[in-house]
């Protein structure tokens, strides 16, 4: 089974310790065992962009879809026989010690985008973006306040896949299939369900490769879930597992003030006529 691991601060965050929380060993082990398909760190949540289409208007906002603590700091896609192995892998990830790992199974087979037997991340997938391209994690967020849209994303998937903008992605199982894992005082704590019973929840993810945020927003706006829910775009922040962690933490703190992309305006000024959004 394939699972998405989401790394979050959790309800009981512990201080990050560069010496304790080295990810290199975990990463090397996952690759050696052949279970780690793909994973990236994300730019902090203040670099997130949410995209909604309501009444034909494109609404763009800064920040993550939810202001709750569960803002996602990174993700991995793993392929393991069952939840027990996913828990074991999650429990050894450094974030389990100072934050929390959410385990979300992908939707397989009927109704899923990926057929049974295939891996989500395509073979020969190049993890390094080409010069001039930027990568975004596109989170599909279900939101009961969205418009009533029963359009399937299949056309969107086919189109964005054909022109190379969408590298892979899939639906996730509902939040009640979520398992949370953390380590506290050396003890493994496993609990069921999502971190918070928020009204919004992540229903799927896609990885985009685009010329920049404007393109990513336009792609996101064409996804049916931009009307039925919310799309969150998170720039990737590739992880150098060999970098010195203390140095990297300092550098990131300094960088966090900078924007990766020019800020987009929010509100009526950012709205686009329906024809433009839907072509």
């Amino acid at each position: 089974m394939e699972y998405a691991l989401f790394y979050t601060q959790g309800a009981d965050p512990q201080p990050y310790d560069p010496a304790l929380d080295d990810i290199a060993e975990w990463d090397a082990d996952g690759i050696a065992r052949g279970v780690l398909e793909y994973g990236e760190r994300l730019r902090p949540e203040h670099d997130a962009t949410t995209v909604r289409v309501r009444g034909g208007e494109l609404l763009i906002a800064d920040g993550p879809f939810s202001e709750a603590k569960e803002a996602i700091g990174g993700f991995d896609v793993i392929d393991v026989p069952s939840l027990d192995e996913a828990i074991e892998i999650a429990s050894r990830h450094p974030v389990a010690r100072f934050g929390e790992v959410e385990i979300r199974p992908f939707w397989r087979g009927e109704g899923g985008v990926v057929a049974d037997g295939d891996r989500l991340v395509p073979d020969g997938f190049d993890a390094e973006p080409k010069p001039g391209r930027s990568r975004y994690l596109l989170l599909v967020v279900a939101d009961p306040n969205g418009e009533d849209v029963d359009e399937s994303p299949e056309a969107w998937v086919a189109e964005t896949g054909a022109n190379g903008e969408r590298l892979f992605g899939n639906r996730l199982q509902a939040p009640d299939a979520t398992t949370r894992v953390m380590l506290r005082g050396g003890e493994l704590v496993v609990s069921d369900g999502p971190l918070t019973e928020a009204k919004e929840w992540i229903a799927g993810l896609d990885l985009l490769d685009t010329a920049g945020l404007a393109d990513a927003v336009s792609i996101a706006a064409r996804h049916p879930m931009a009307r039925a829910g919310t799309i969150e775009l998170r720039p990737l922040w590739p992880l150098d597992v060999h970098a010195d962690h203390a140095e990297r933490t300092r550098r990131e703190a300094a960088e966090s003030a900078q924007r990766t992309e020019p800020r987009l305006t929010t509100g009526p000024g950012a709205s686009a006529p329906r024809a433009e959004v839907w072509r």
Partner: protein
Amino acid sequence: MRPARGGLALSRQASTPDASAPDAGADAGVDAALRAAFTEEWAHVVATLIRTTGDWDVAEEASAAAFERAARTWPRDGIPSRPGAWLTTTARHLALDRLRRRSVEVEKLREWRDVEEPGGPPDPADAVAADADAEWVDDRLRLIFTCAHPALAMDARVALTLRTVGGLATGEIARAFLVPEATMAQRLVRAKRRIRTAGIPYRVPPPEALPERLDSVLAVLYLVHNEGYLASSGERLMRVDLSTEAIRLTRLVAGLLPHETEAEALLALMLLQRARTAARAAPDGGLIPLELQDRSRWDRTDLTEGLAILTRLGSGPVGAYRLQAEIQGAHASAATASDTDWHRILACYDGLAARSDSPFIALNRAIAVGMADGPERGLAELAALEAGGGLGAYHLLPAAQADFHRRAGDATAARRCYRRAIGLAPTAVERRYLEGRLAALGA
């Protein structure tokens, strides 16, 4: 269709007058055989069916249908020599039939490990071949560990264990936990769906994970037992049944995992607590504390077995259930309340307190201090606990203070504490008991 609990409903069906039914004596024999088969074999049959079909609902339905077929055909054809094998084979045929009829289950049929031809009566030789003992042990353990998986919510673990391992009907579990039947049915559906969608494996955890996962299994069983043991109102009989069910399942786990001494210790703990059932309540339903219980009314069979387990565990490893069982053992082996070895009990609470910072353990330890070293020492421990604030508005803290003030001869302070405890007590039975103690102190 859901099977009703064991012998009861099945016996009703089996004893329904039938043209072809043999004489009444044989009928009673079939009745007993069906009752025994349900108690002994339900978990076997369901566990095997889940493994072969991979579908919890089909497994449950086919198992229930197999027991119904037994109730219909055993009175006519006689009791098979191996009822468990007969039931398993029959259930497998029924499940295969069912899956064949449902075209959407093509995938599952393909996964079916031992494809058999359906129809016709089960072949006993085939059944004997299918039930190698080791495999049956594994099947039941798989079921127990899956139902108690830590990625399920605790209430789902308890409900699923009672339903799937214990064979209790949804309505019975609902009544025992005082929730509407629809709520319990929904909880079971969700738990089974979660096992499927989250990918919870149907297996016994690997050796390195076993101790941790066994903790969850034992916690589920202890919770079931406590629900029966501590019940002070409502569906009383049903809840005593829950304790009996918990003991039966714990005996099963301890038997399947003979090297896990904590499972045996939990069994001893449950038996020693159950031994006091008849002495714990007055005819009017009032609560009788340990100190005032008529020890001749304690159940000798349970006491003997519980103490024998403790003796057998001897100097082996000591876990939290072992310590709690030792405490019960100290009470059980005291001829009168004043003979109780409170220093031995205090040593056990010291051990428990070292493992857990639970305020309830701290409270019980403080009481043991007072009983072992005098009420003043007990009051000092309780005062420290009260200052710590961990017990909030828990009524047994002022109740314990009241008791030590009474023993120390300070009736005024005792009355004050009893009144506070009465105000906090959650059940009428406990309030009545505390009011009785208050009245006994005079105005």
